[in-house]
């Protein structure tokens, strides 16, 4: 089948081309860059809200973009089971749109943090983690200043198994040193109840080619491969 993915460009998105590059040139599926006011969900099997600073992150990361018509289109996709991924600023947009639980606050370091971290797979039954093993550790970079995950009902997240990724040490230990921004319970990514919407702060598109990885691996690509697998398995 011909899979077609939309990568939404909000004013101020800046990882839109990077995600499109990985989908088109590394994985080899069709991904279109679409300006947020022109996005129509009908043509697409899935969509990605990329990283960046939509509307400058003015007021709060993701809040202004959450009102964009593109987000309403994404909601339609979610309702009929198609996959939607939010990376970094995209994650902020998905929480502000209330498609995902919680909120992303200013890092407790009070600074922008650009570095490679390690995340552990907590739930491998989502549209974006089904090609990973549970508890698998992945090398991936972060680059954000508002990434401290907060939610006032953690129990609900655990009960519903909505935590997808957690920050851990190289060896897989959950501790404060491996938490780059002060996120509750080291949470790096969550999903919705239906498992077709995932948001995460780290950047899988920057960890999908060996040449870019200080660890010479391509762990990030598993997210996109999971999406492709999810789309294919649903069609069959």
């Amino acid at each position, binding site marked *: 089948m011909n899979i077609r993915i939309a990568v939404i460009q909000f004013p101020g998105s800046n990882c839109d081309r990077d995600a499109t590059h990985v989908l088109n040139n590394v994985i080899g599926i069709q991904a279109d860059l679409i300006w947020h006011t022109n996005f129509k969900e009908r043509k697409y099997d899935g969509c990605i809200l990329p990283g960046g600073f939509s509307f400058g992150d003015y007021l709060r990361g993701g809040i202004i973009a959450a009102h964009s018509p593109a987000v309403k289109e994404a909601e339609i996709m979610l309702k009929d089971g198609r996959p939607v991924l939010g990376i970094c600023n995209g994650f902020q947009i998905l929480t502000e749109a209330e498609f995902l639980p919680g909120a992303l606050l200013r890092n407790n370091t009070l600074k*922008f943090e*650009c570095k490679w971290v390690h995340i552990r797979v907590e739930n491998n039954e989502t549209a974006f983690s089904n090609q990973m093993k549970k508890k698998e550790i992945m090398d991936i*970079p972060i*680059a954000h200043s508002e990434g401290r995950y907060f939610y006032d009902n953690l129990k609900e997240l655990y009960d519903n198994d909505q935590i997808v990724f957690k920050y851990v040490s190289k060896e897989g230990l959950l501790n404060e040193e491996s938490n780059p921004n002060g996120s509750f319970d080291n949470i790096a990514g969550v999903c919705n109840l239906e498992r077709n919407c995932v948001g995460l702060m780290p950047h899988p*598109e920057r960890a999908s080619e060996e040449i870019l990885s200080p660890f010479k691996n391509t762990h990030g690509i598993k997210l996109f491969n999971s999406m492709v697998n999810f789309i294919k398995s649903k069609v069959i």
Partner: protein
Amino acid sequence: MPIVENEGETVEVDLTEEEIKKIKSLLGRDPYITEWGMFDVMGSEHCSYKSSRPKLKLFEPAEENYDYVLAGPGQDAGVVDIGDDYCIAFRIESHNHPSAIEPYHGAATGIGGIIRDILCMGMRPIALLDPLRFGRLKNNSHSQWLLKYVVKGIADYGNCTGIPTIGGEVEFDHSFENNCLVNVACIGVGKVEDLAPSRASKPGDYAVLMGNSTGRDGIHGVTFASRTLTEQSESDRPAVQIADPFSKKLIIEATVEAVKTGYIRGLKDLGGGGLSCASSELTGDGGTGIEFDVNKVFTREPNMTPFEIMLSESQERMMFIVKAEGLETILEIFKKYETPYAVLGKINNSKLLRVKNADKIVVELDPTLLSDFPVIIREEKRPEFLNDLINQKTPERTLKFDGIIYRLIASENICSKEWIYRQYDHEVGVRSVVKCGDGDSGVLRIIGTNKFISGSAGCNSKHCFLDPYEGAKGAVVEIGCNIVSNGLKPIAMVNCCNFGNPEKPTSFWYFSECVKGMADSIKFFNIPCVGGNVSFYNEDEVLQKVIKPTPIIMLLGYIEGQENIITLPFKKAGNPIFLIGETKNELGGSEYHSVIYNIEGGTPPKVNLDSTKRTWDFLLEVNKKGYIRSVHDVNKGGFLITILEMSFPNELGADLNLYDCFDKDLTSEQFLFSESVGRFIIEVDADKIKEFIALIEKNKLYFKEIGVIIEEMQIKIKRLEENFNLDIMIAKNLFNSTLPRIMEGDM
């Protein structure tokens, strides 16, 4: 400053009586008040280069002598052809004075300005670099405040616009205490066909102003930048602009998309001098003219006068020269990105810049009058204190070597700069192949090709202070070594000259010597100078304090083939370590002198251009052959610091036998701590030693095999007058914790 008037209006201009007379006679009448403002701005040091121009002539013309140079000095950015229709634009600028009083917005708008310089060549900006200078940091809340907010300003602007900051440099020295330096560089990539000249060459084209509205902010910003920072600056304060990276991001996308249509014939950003500078340069260089009404310009505040509109330096504005048939397409693009615009008027062949306010003419002159300001020949004189300084002796050593090295590795100028580059998104764009800290330069891939480019920028201000000619040559060599260390070849240079008041003969001497040093060395290496920027008046008149001369060099590296890219960390125990290049008795201006003895003098390093060139060629060749595994050039603190830096990332040690590794005339401390330029530490593949040595001997390079990499986390130094060990974990901790402890802690 003289006051001029016309029709009852007056304005203060920073022009000499002679210049005023000349302007009147060229024009054949008294300039209108807005014209006075334009002459004032265009005649400022910043715009006219009136002091520096005679010296900058020492650089050979780049476009004529190098066939791959597509744009050289005089354009908004230098542009080089890297083959297969791709070209690279790059440039460096200073934003020192605004940053000294408002570090956050000063630095941020500096980034904004340099991005526009790249953008207006029609290229997409893909990387930033930031060479910085501050006063000493420890126990100095002013320097800490400046560093904190300069870094935040650069981070917020670069990160938001999605342009990675791939490298930079920083030095801390008391001379920058009241005059910090914020230099910013930008690199752009594009197709040769998209190159947009800053020229309006064809009558009938439309001039379209696009971007933010024009306000009263930053009127006379240029004149401000060209004046010494004194008490006077207090009242100039509103001259610092507010940064708006989000608008800039939209302008970048709209501009790149517009350029791709093929309908843009000329493009110019509005920087110093605002609309008056942009419109006169576009038409002046294009041999055309234009007429427009200032009321077409969209303003942010009501009742702005023509003078204010023409001279406002409001940020984030561009002027497009659009082919008539493409106007509608271009305006549609601006609408998509919701960037405001105004079609000002049509280019004509009058060779006149004519601006009206409804029926009244406010400007009517030949635009070339504004760009040809007469030069001023400045006096130069070597300062008398230099002789004593250079003869300063190294005090008797009382500390042990290991203690000295731990102190050096923890010192401000040598310690890790990770606290800075962590705050920069250095990976956005998925091009960053060698990232901050992994190598001496930032290396980027050009997606869709097997081409790689790199950038590195800096200089050693302490060396330049003692000997500006050799110091500037040393800067070219050091930055070139940074490029070569990662396997690329330096192909073009831009520079940013930061000096004191040019009206003072000693300050001007420093400038003059540095330019000579730069020009001589790049000529020797066959590297074209494709652009630059001069910042004078970095001098505190009240305290009589001048900055150390700082000729920042930026080099662009290029190579085809991923296999050529090499990084700094030691790779494997058992591999031998070589020191290439000769160490001389050159402790002058060294970190050893400054950190351990708090002295600035001594004999500064002299450069051997010939052996450096042969070393570069050799390294590029052995790297191609795959004989070497890691490379790092020797810089501040001497070669043991270099070895430590290579040992940290993979936590590998080294066993060094230094017997017979240096000239008998040298003492051990001179050998260990001299900062002789053009040296490298190289890890050679153990299986390729023979081939490596054969090739190095064939090239007649000075080299020593100094030891071997070991698993143990120690650097063992043997066969000096004292044997000693350095613990890698202790050194690494000192290296990494210095900046965070000062900036987050209580020092």
